[in-house]
């Protein structure tokens, strides 16, 4: 269901839980479909012993993909015109993520949104923007 301009105002928010206790297998699934087989995401031996990170961590694009689900659930299917993010902190197995879209402006059939995804410690892991066609 698309959003209606008459029902939106600046500052409106929409929030979803993206994932609870992120599983390593979910990260493996994303590697498999995206084709990004960087061992940093799935190979604990390489990631700890060679790359010197505390454990494997999620692809930024997995967080962006899950955040995209929150966006399309809010604005409707096929309505996004722009979506961009910065990856501000890593996402680790076991993390729980919540994502919020906030209405920045509504103009000429387009809603502009600020997008933010936070982990269970309230650390911002992704920040960005989106724009979508509205009725």
């Amino acid at each position, binding site marked *: 269901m698309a959003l209606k301009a008459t029902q939106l105002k600046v500052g409106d928010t929409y929030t979803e839980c993206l*994932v609870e206790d992120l599983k390593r297998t979910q990260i493996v699934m994303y590697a498999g*479909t*995206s*084709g990004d087989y960087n061992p940093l995401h799935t190979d604990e031996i390489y990631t700890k012993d060679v790359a010197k990170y505390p454990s494997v961590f999620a692809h930024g694009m997995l967080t962006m993909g899950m955040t995209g689900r929150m966006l399309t659930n809010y604005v409707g299917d096929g309505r996004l015109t*722009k979506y961009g993010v*910065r990856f501000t902190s890593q996402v680790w197995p076991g993390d729980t993520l919540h994502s919020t879209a906030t209405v920045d402006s509504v103009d000429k059939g387009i809603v502009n949104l600020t997008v933010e995804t936070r982990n269970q410690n309230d650390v911002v892991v992704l920040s960005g923007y989106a724009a979508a066609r509205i009725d």
Partner: protein
Amino acid sequence: MAVDRFPVEATHIMMFARSVADYNQIYYDDNYAKTTEVGHVIAPPTFAQSSAQFDPNYFLRPKVGQPWFGSGKEPTGIKREPSSGGGGGGGGLHAEQHYEYHRHIKPGDILKGVVKPGKTWEKEGKRSGKLVFTETVTEYYDQTGELVITAKGVGVRTERPVDSK
């Protein structure tokens, strides 16, 4: 990323949607999709990233008979190749990703990804030393030559692993 032929297939869309934990039936069920405003299955917003599957030489995929920097039973000692920037991978991390949708892609599309090099810049990071950013713009064209998605990736190479604290 640059890719000559990226055929968009319903099964790939279904598996990709599962991998981002998105169970919206518009990605799975053609009969359901026909009842929606869109009228057909579409791909999730970040699906274009999976064009890596159609790059035969993609360097973040192990290949038979070639060295791979990930571990077997133990670390191999093979150094990772430097990233050519844009998407993160290799020795770098993915810092930013931006999409502009001219239309939403669907099963049956055959895309071509054309890469345009972007800017490179440096800055000093508190958690990881010197940071070198590289931007790559990929334009995805469909089988009719229509521009469907413009993607901009920013990769960052760090002097040392990012401090997770």
